[in-house]
């Protein structure tokens, strides 16, 4: 390091034997940031009008170049590359956060317009008066039927896949040995990779054979979601059950407790925090699935409480349909699409918070 230390100090006033010699001073760094920002803004103004986006992009490029050059002059090549890497990492992070923040912001601001009581209490079965009001730009109609549909379909899917997934995980961790367990592990991997639209097509194909062509029902949608949700439950539950220390199982066996009671009273309660977190996240993942519901449950204008027959609207499909096939004029329909999107994001965020709380509340003590 000392051998390659350049001779030029960062500023003439620094004493020669100071430890900061050969290091970029904080003030220089600050000057580079301000300079890059100013240069970026000035060039945007010069090229015809100040725009935030272009000014920031240019400033970022100037900063990356300037910090490298400054470090190259004051420090050495290795430090310069290190600073370049730090700058690039930070910039990438900011660049990535921009679209993600924009998604959240757009959904919140666009969805807020119709995020009202009518939206949560009315369906799309509009009366003639409401139709007329909609033609004049009135904000009518809601997603009550879609919310009910989402609850029914997701609830059924959860009712199928939670026991299914949990028992499979118990088998893999506690019982499974040999070929069968290996085959199941491999097939769970394959299932994890099934595209959601393919799961939808499977459920459609299954129900067509029993109920005839063109069939649509909430149950078919639930089956499609089960195919998507089960592997997620198996994976997370398996991981959590494997974390339970073997000493606990052995202690239980030593007391003469049968295996199934050991599993239900010792193993699962110890892992319950992780298992519940995994289940909540799995629900959060499937609740926003659109494609499989589009091909299995379809769209209806009114509430359908019977999952065994008839079309059933769900929130994601409602969002898609309101946007893709808007009413005339489209404004009311598109406002409903955004509110439904906002509702979905809020539900996912709530499920996320619940998973965090569950993890904290059921955290096993003393482990």
């Amino acid at each position: 390091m000392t051998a390659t230390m350049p001779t030029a100090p960062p500023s003439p006033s620094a004493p020669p034997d100071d430890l900061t010699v050969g290091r970029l001073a904080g003030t220089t760094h600050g000057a580079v940031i301000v300079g890059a920002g100013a240069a970026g803004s000035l060039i945007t103004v010069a090229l015809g009008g100040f725009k935030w986006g272009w000014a920031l992009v240019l400033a970022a490029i100037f900063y990356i170049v300037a910090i490298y050059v400054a470090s190259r002059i004051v420090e050495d090549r290795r430090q310069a590359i290190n600073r370049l890497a730090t700058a690039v990492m930070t910039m990438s992070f900011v660049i990535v956060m921009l679209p993600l923040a924009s998604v959240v912001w757009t959904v919140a601001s666009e969805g807020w317009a119709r995020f009202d009581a009518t939206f949560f209490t009315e369906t799309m079965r509009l009366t003639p008066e409401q139709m007329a009001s909609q033609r004049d730009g009135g904000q009518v109609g809601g997603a009550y039927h879609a919310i009910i549909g989402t609850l029914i379909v997701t609830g059924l899917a959860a009712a199928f896949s939670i026991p299914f997934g949990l028992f499979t995980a118990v088998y893999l961790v506690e019982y499974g040995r040999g070929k069968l367990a290996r085959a199941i592990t491999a097939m769970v991997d394959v299932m994890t990779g099934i595209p959601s639209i393919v799961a939808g097509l499977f459920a459609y194909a299954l129900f067509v054979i029993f109920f005839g062509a063109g069939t649509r029902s909430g149950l078919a949608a639930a089956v499609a979601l089960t195919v998507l949700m089960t592997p997620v439950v198996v994976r997370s539950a398996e991981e959590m059950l494997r974390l339970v220390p073997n000493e606990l199982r052995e202690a239980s066996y030593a007391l003469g407790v049968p295996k199934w009671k050991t599993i239900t009273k010792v193993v699962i309660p110890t892992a319950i925090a992780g298992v519940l977190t995994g289940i909540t996240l799995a629900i959060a993942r499937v609740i926003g699935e659109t494609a499989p519901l589009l091909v299995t449950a379809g769209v209806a204008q009114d509430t359908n409480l019977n999952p065994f027959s008839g079309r059933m609207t769900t929130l994601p499909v409602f969002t898609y349909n309101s946007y893709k096939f808007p009413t005339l004029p489209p404004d009311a329909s598109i406002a409903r699409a955004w509110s439904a999107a906002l509702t979905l994001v809020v539900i996912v965020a709530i499920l996320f918070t619940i998973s965090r709380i569950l993890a904290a509340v059921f955290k096993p003590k003393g482990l």
Partner: protein
Amino acid sequence: MTTIEQPLDQPPDLTDAPGKLGDKVFGGLSKGAGILILVTLAAVAIFLLTEAWPALTGDLTVLDGGDTLIEYVGPLVFGTILAALLALVFATPMAVAVALFITHYAPKRVAQTLGSFVDLLAAIPSIVYGLWGITVLAPLLASNVYPFLDDHLSFIPFFAGPASTSGRTMLTAAVVLSVMILPIITAISREAFLQTPRLHEEASLALGATRWEMIRQAVIPYGRSSVISGAMLGLGRALGETMAVAVILSPADVYSLNLISNQNSNTIAANIALKFPESSGLEVNRLIATGLVLFVITFIVNAIARRISNSGFSGADG
């Protein structure tokens, strides 16, 4: 004294124990659930094949868009792979940079929050990303970027133009897909980078390496196989992603490398979502056949990902 003959992790043989029936029932249920996984997967393959069969064997000339299944599905496969690969190319370097930023640059206290924020973004429904893409991103790119690409870079086949004014192009779709798969790749890379042995990092720093040199010497080699399998997982997700593409892309029945025009190869999944609700008869069978093709493609990609992550090089033994 008798020796213990059974391995310790096996329960003692409690033939007369009161829990025997319970054990049988519980063990049976568990095994049944495991076998049901195999049955489900077999059912997926069988039912898809059954419903796709008329399209695989029948005469497709009565339908629009290609006389044979290959002719019909060709542009779709092309579009699917093009969109997913572009998304992967955009997302992977960014995801690795973000994962490194969260694990090695951001302050410890903030890192945790940033990590869970990224996890949350992975769970935002795809339809929401689709709406955002068509409402915010497409107009933005169409007014600021595409005219520029068309004017100055149209000698590159990707930007041949004419530039779309609506922004409903392959490039927009690929950018939205990359935004969607980025949290997935980031989450997996972050996990791997966090597990880099602390001693490797400290040894590197103690030898005088800068932070970047330490990352290159210790962190990246350790996490490489995880990053690759994360990227493959992201690719699998991008291949099967439906709604965002269905909302954004303005499709045409063509093979097109042109990323900024109105004539784009559609993807398999988006094509199914767009056509399925209005289809009947043989058309449905043909769409299910394309779904089968998609299933095979993602299966291959995931198999490769698994192979990489299983046989993966880990810095721990190097």
